[in-house]
């Protein structure tokens, strides 16, 4: 499994619309996992100053992350593979 960040520009988005998007992401990931294509939404960070959202996903490849976001109908600008660093691992 690899980690990916999905970047989105969501100007003017409300906290409720973010909640709705999160629900859609969660349910689409669950469905794809049931289909045998495991995708997991890990967490998201909303950057209020730039109205950008960075969402972290775990999946075998970028195509699966793209499909999950398209099926959840959440717009995105980039999907980039990332390396995970945590305080416990350094």
């Amino acid at each position, binding site marked *: 499994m690899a980690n990916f960040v999905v970047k989105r520009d969501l100007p003017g988005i409300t906290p409720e619309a973010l*909640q*709705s998007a999160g629900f859609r992401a969660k*349910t689409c990931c669950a469905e794809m996992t049931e*289909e045998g294509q495991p995708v997991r939404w890990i967490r998201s960070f909303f950057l209020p100053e730039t109205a950008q959202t960075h969402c972290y996903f775990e999946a075998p490849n970028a195509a699966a992350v793209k499909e999950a976001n398209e099926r959840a*109908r959440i717009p995105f600008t980039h999907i980039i593979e990332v390396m995970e660093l945590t305080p416990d691992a350094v």
Partner: protein
Amino acid sequence: MTDTELVAAFAITQAKRCGLDEITPDELLLGCLRMISQFGIVTFGRWTFDLEALGVDWLENPDRKGVKPAYSQALVDVFDLAARIAKADGANGIRIDHLLVALWSESGLMGELRKTYGITSAEWRAAAVQLSVARQVKEVEAPVEKRESVRDYLSPEQAAEALGLHAQTVRAYIRSGKLPAMRVAGERAIRIRREDLEKVLEPLG
């Protein structure tokens, strides 16, 4: 999975079953109705709906293969509205009653139900209120047994909270022998049996 996630999962499955590329508010409505149904019969407010008459085979094992439907924009709007309703309700997340209220003004299946049964917005919302109350009562009642079984043994802090005393006071009672307590073998942690709490209480007069 939460009940709301199960509703969404059913909506996706229903779209697959019908070979749809997009999941519409119709499938979500059927998902909500199925979640609150028993043997294919939905009792909601003053209405009784038969899932079979609405085209849902409630006994069928869903086949998840084949098409990979996406949420339609109309359904995204319903989810957005449901999230706003949930916020207005002071809820932590979107529940089935929020989805049902958000679906009321939709055309399609909801429009047909509105027309056939003469459903007003106020009646529909009132039925959703009834549903949320009934489900919350169930939730409150369900964990009681579990709560008691996991708290047979309390930490001094939990015992203090149960008695309405300061933790220091409880530790003093333990030191003086007024409150029986045990040490977890080989550890510093102290545990008090819930039934021993009454030993520090005496009746008035």
